[in-house]
């Protein structure tokens, strides 16, 4: 009978803002969407949905996290559609038609007398090019390069984060769960990788790898097509892919050991919990125990780390391009733009300033989001918020 009382108390009401209603709608819509495919999903996961909503409320009450989320959403949109939004193609070199377009300052406009080959015919036309944020050494519009470069950064970012941490987490889980010799082996290899400063290892790898990758690409057309599609590049840039992908491979290799360390540590503490032993007592295979029981319980802090690393990857990748490794022109890349600009600094300040601002903003966005997620995913902070939100009329006196 007192259980009934508890039930009543559990149905709390919260003070809602517009943002809360919006996030509620989104979550409800998502739940309905899954419900179409899985019968009864919504009812069975009502606790989970409620938790998601609470997470959203927590997020809605943290302006920095919202700002981060906003920046990240813009980044993702530009990462997908950027190349198509760019006014000029990344491999259109105005400098060929009008030499004074080289390093044009922001706000200037130039007249171009263009001659190109289209479908086998020589075409002549004239056009104006307006440089809102200036141009680079090839006379390319910085706005266009920034937009197209968003795709490069985004694709590298997503795939490095998809692959690196996954490898790390799997190795960490195995290492932490089995312990003993397996653990020793995996962790010593991890240590070897960690012993090198990440950037230096990445530099070494990006210097060694390009030719091999290029050879592989030349031998496999499907890989070529795939990569060109992914990075939204034109077919004639195939030969420049080697260097770009070298950075990708180098960063994946540099990125997993941290995750192996962290997830091993969490696994070690998590496996001491009796539910792991209970799962063994039921006879569940190790695979199930690792991925269905341990992983969801250690994923919180790792998710925060992943979010922060989305920014980290952009920064490192830009750093490598700045050093002249990785993307080479004409492949659009933020770091590369700064690399060009560094030679003409401070005259062509815009080549450093604008890509710099973009990189800083995106990295900041990911970090703000990561920080916000840390609070949202921590049940303690979320619970405190849950109580703060409770309608005053309900609980009688609220906290002082």
């Amino acid at each position, binding site marked *: 009978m007192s259980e009934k009382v508890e039930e009543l108390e559990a149905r709390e009401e919260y003070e809602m803002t517009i943002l809360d209603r919006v996030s509620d709608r989104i979550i409800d819509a998502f739940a309905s969407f899954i419900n179409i495919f899985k019968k009864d999903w919504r009812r069975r996961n009502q606790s989970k949905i409620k938790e998601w909503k609470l997470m959203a409320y927590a997020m809605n009450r943290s302006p920095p996290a919202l700002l981060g989320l906003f920046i990240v959403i813009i980044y993702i949109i530009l990462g997908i559609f950027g190349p198509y939004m760019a006014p000029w193609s990344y491999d259109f070199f105005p400098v060929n038609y009008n030499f004074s377009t080289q390093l044009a300052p922001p706000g200037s406009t130039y007249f171009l007398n263009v001659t190109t080959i289209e479908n086998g015919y020589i075409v002549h036309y004239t056009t104006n090019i307006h440089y809102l944020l200036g141009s680079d050494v090839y006379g390319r519009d910085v706005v266009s390069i920034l937009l197209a470069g968003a795709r490069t950064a985004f694709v590298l970012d997503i795939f490095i984060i998809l692959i690196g941490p996954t490898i790390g987490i799997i190795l960490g889980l195995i290492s932490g769960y089995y312990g003993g010799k397996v653990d020793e082996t995996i962790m010593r290899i991890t240590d070897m990788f960690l012993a090198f400063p990440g950037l230096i290892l990445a530099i070494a790898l990006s210097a060694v790898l390009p030719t091999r990758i290029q050879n592989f690409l030349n031998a496999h057309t499907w890989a070529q097509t795939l990569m060109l599609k992914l990075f939204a590049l034109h077919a004639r840039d195939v030969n420049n892919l080697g260097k770009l992908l070298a950075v990708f491979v180098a960063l994946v290799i540099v990125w997993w050991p941290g995750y192996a360390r962290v997830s091993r540590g969490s696994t070690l503490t998590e496996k001491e*919990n009796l539910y792991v032993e209970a799962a063994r*007592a039921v006879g569940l295979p190790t695979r199930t125990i690792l991925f269905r029981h341990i992983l969801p319980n250690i994923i919180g802090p790792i998710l925060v780390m992943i979010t922060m690393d989305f920014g980290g990857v952009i920064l490192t990748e830009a750093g490598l391009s700045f050093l002249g490794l990785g993307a080479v022109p004409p492949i659009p890349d933020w770091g590369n733009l700064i690399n060009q600009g560094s030679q003409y600094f401070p005259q062509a300040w815009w080549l450093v300033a604008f890509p710099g601002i973009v990189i800083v903003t995106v990295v900041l966005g990911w970090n703000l989001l990561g920080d916000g997620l840390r609070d949202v995913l921590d049940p303690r902070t979320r619970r405190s918020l849950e109580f703060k939100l409770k309608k005053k009329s309900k609980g009688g006196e609220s906290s002082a």
Partner: protein
Amino acid sequence: MEPVLKVEGLRKYFPVKSLLRTIGWVKAVDGVSFEIYPGETFGLVGESGCGKTTTGRTILRLIEPTEGKIVFNGKDVTQLKGREMLWFRRHAQIMFQDPYSSLDPRQTVFNIIMEPVKFHGIEVDDPEEFVIRLLESVGLNEMHLYRYPHEFSGGQRQRIALAKVLALQPDFVVLDEPTSALDVSVQANILNTLKDLQKKHGFSYLFISHDLGVVKYMSHRMGVMYLGKLVEVGPAERIFDNPLHPYTQMLLSAIPIPDPELARKKKRMEVKGEPPSPINPPSGCRFHPRCPFAKAGLCDKEEPPLVEVEKDHYVACWLYGKA
């Protein structure tokens, strides 16, 4: 009657390591033998570090035994592999002490209970109905179906753990201090539920506890463990009325009795020393350094065997057997 479980000469030694070298062994369980019959509760009592928990886990092969035989329904568990091991996993279950860590916090009650059922391929017509029925049998209801463990109190969590055990319809359950993390009023509730379920389904329990009162309430027969060995085995009533081993006598005189009159009348025995480390247990009878009746030259030299002193009542003490 055939025992459900027969343990013979069970030993579990843990290595003590120093700089990758094994420098000694913790003899957590050192030659333990007993049987458990269908529908019976066998209590295992002892102080911390006596090996009672290790015994429970070794029997279920959650820890591999160093030596000994564990015969479950006629099959030697230590030799089981593959399908047969799964059969064993289904029919022998465990319920843990700490209700706060024994349920996966990321799973709903429904998933927690259904996962083993699905895994063992037990046919259920309507899973939801099935789980609700189980929850009701342990005093919870359908409102709790899709909740997460953190939404429950300690006692309720133990009930969920119990429902999970029930779902597999086991023959035998190891209860590892199932109530020691709970308050007395909740404890009484869980103990009664356990008893009722035993009556209804005919389970056999191995009930591990350090609380003698609880063990007496629950057990038909019991064993007293000291430093990895059983020192006394017999019907629970008999052991409480007439403890034979000096250690059992010491334990009984040491437990506080919740009745001032009985407490004043209780015959007291001086409690000497503390349990020694199981790394280098005393030679001969392991209890001899604390035993008021220890005979030099015998108790410190030779280990007493477990002998039947009266019907079904076994003691390992030189007071009751000849060398």
